[in-house]
């Protein structure tokens, strides 16, 4: 474990940027039609519940990385294997995010550029960043967060002042009943993006003010969850349900609709910066967590050694992860949620918590 400390505000920023990351790109929860925003909010609430599982586990072993305490809970060898699989899972998600981003860039702005090169450039940036460790990443996050806020707020002002928003598009609410919304929650929004915050279990031990963790986490989640829901409301009320669900990247289509003063139009390229920030951050976090986890498992003395080879692996797998973007999205939002995310984010942590509970019951009382 790296000897580093991050502040509560830094954790807040990291969680917020992470949640925003790629979720802002994809037509999230559009299965719920105009109630997508509702589904996102409910997913967020589900995310809180998951957090309490992770939080309890953290309270049992506050100074340890999950790769360490898994070994304590279920024994050394099985623990190591499980932890290794978790790291593979993080690497897989990192590749998915890289692909999301590359595909977006290639389809929207750089149609003739090879995906490999577009991805490679971002990967080089991430490799460069991660060699400095978590502290620099956290500090970078703080700066980027301000930039991020600035751009999103200005985008919001532009959209609303060009008179595009038509809230009638959000009606009728709950057209297909509550269950249709709920289905997208447990099929989609609970895991992407809220359950994905399981990576932060690997970051919690670095926090310098332990008591603030709960508050920071909940507020960051709320901020990003509500913003995502709000973004979806804007998307649907500008584009309509039909176009939102047909768009590969709804937010981009929304930005493209801006026409102001015959001057501020076709702004999607400016908005690209927001997307780069989000993806860069999400990717870096997955990658960092995977690298530090692997280093912990294999007792690598200098984790920075791992960054470059792992970066290349992520880069290559981001290319071969799917033949087409359609396959990529199908895999990510339908298959992976049920077969990968559900067990990894919900079932296994819950089981671990139960075992840990019984193991620790005898030895010590739970610290508040």
């Amino acid at each position, binding site marked *: 474990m790296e000897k580093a400390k991050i502040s509560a505000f830094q954790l807040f920023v990291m969680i917020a940027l992470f949640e925003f990351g790629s979720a802002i790109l994809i037509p999230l929860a559009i299965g719920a039609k105009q109630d997508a925003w509702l589904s996102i909010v409910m997913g967020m609430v589900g995310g809180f519940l998951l957090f309490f599982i992770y939080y309890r586990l953290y309270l049992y072993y506050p100074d340890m990385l999950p790769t360490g305490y898994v070994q304590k809970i279920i024994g050394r060898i099985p623990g190591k294997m499980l932890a290794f699989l978790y790291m593979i899972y993080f690497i897989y998600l990192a*590749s998915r995010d890289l692909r999301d981003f590359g595909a977006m860039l290639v389809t929207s702005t750089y149609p003739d550029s090879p995906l490999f090169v577009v991805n490679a450039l971002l990967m080089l940036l991430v490799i460069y960043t991660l060699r400095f460790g978590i502290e620099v990443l956290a500090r970078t996050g703080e700066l980027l967060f301000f930039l991020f806020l600035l751009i999103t707020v200005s985008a919001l002002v532009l959209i609303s002042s060009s008179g595009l928003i038509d809230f009638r598009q959000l009606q009728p609410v709950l057209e297909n009943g509550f269950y249709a919304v709920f289905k997208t929650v447990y099929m989609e929004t609970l895991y992407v993006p809220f359950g994905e915050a399981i990576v932060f279990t690997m970051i919690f031990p670095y926090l310098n003010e332990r008591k603030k963790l709960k508050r920071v986490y909940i507020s960051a989640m709320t901020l990003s969850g509500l913003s995502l829901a709000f973004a979806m409301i804007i998307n649907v009320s500008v584009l309509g349900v039909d176009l939102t669900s047909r768009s590969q990247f709804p937010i981009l289509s929304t930005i493209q609709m801006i026409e102001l003063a015959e001057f501020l139009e076709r702004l999607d390229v400016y908005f690209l910066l927001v997307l780069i920030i989000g993806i860069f951050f999400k990717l870096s976090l997955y990658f960092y967590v995977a690298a530090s986890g692997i280093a912990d498992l294999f007792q690598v003395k200098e984790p920075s050694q791992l960054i470059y080879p792992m970066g290349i692996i992520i880069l290559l797998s981001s290319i071969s992860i799917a033949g087409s973007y359609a396959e990529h999205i199908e895999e990510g939002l339908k298959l992976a949620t049920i077969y990968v995310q559900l067990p990894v984010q919900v079932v296994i942590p819950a089981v671990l918590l139960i075992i840990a509970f019984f193991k620790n019951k005898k030895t010590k009382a739970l610290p508040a």
Partner: protein
Amino acid sequence: MKIIGIALLISLFLFALIFGMDLLLKFDVKTSIAAILTPIQIIGPVEIGLLTIFIFFFFALPLFHEYKKKKNKKKPAE
């Protein structure tokens, strides 16, 4: 060497996962294997160059590090 070993182990598991996902999508085994390789089939000289550099450093960096460590051990700090 350890680093390369770990990296290869990771890629083995990762590509197994990707392959498994393709199978779950109800593709047959042959298409699934092909799906892993297709994206790097249409490739220009620039990309080949980049890819070569990347893969070269993939092996070179850890080996270089190993070499340096050995040299440092032989010649301990004064």
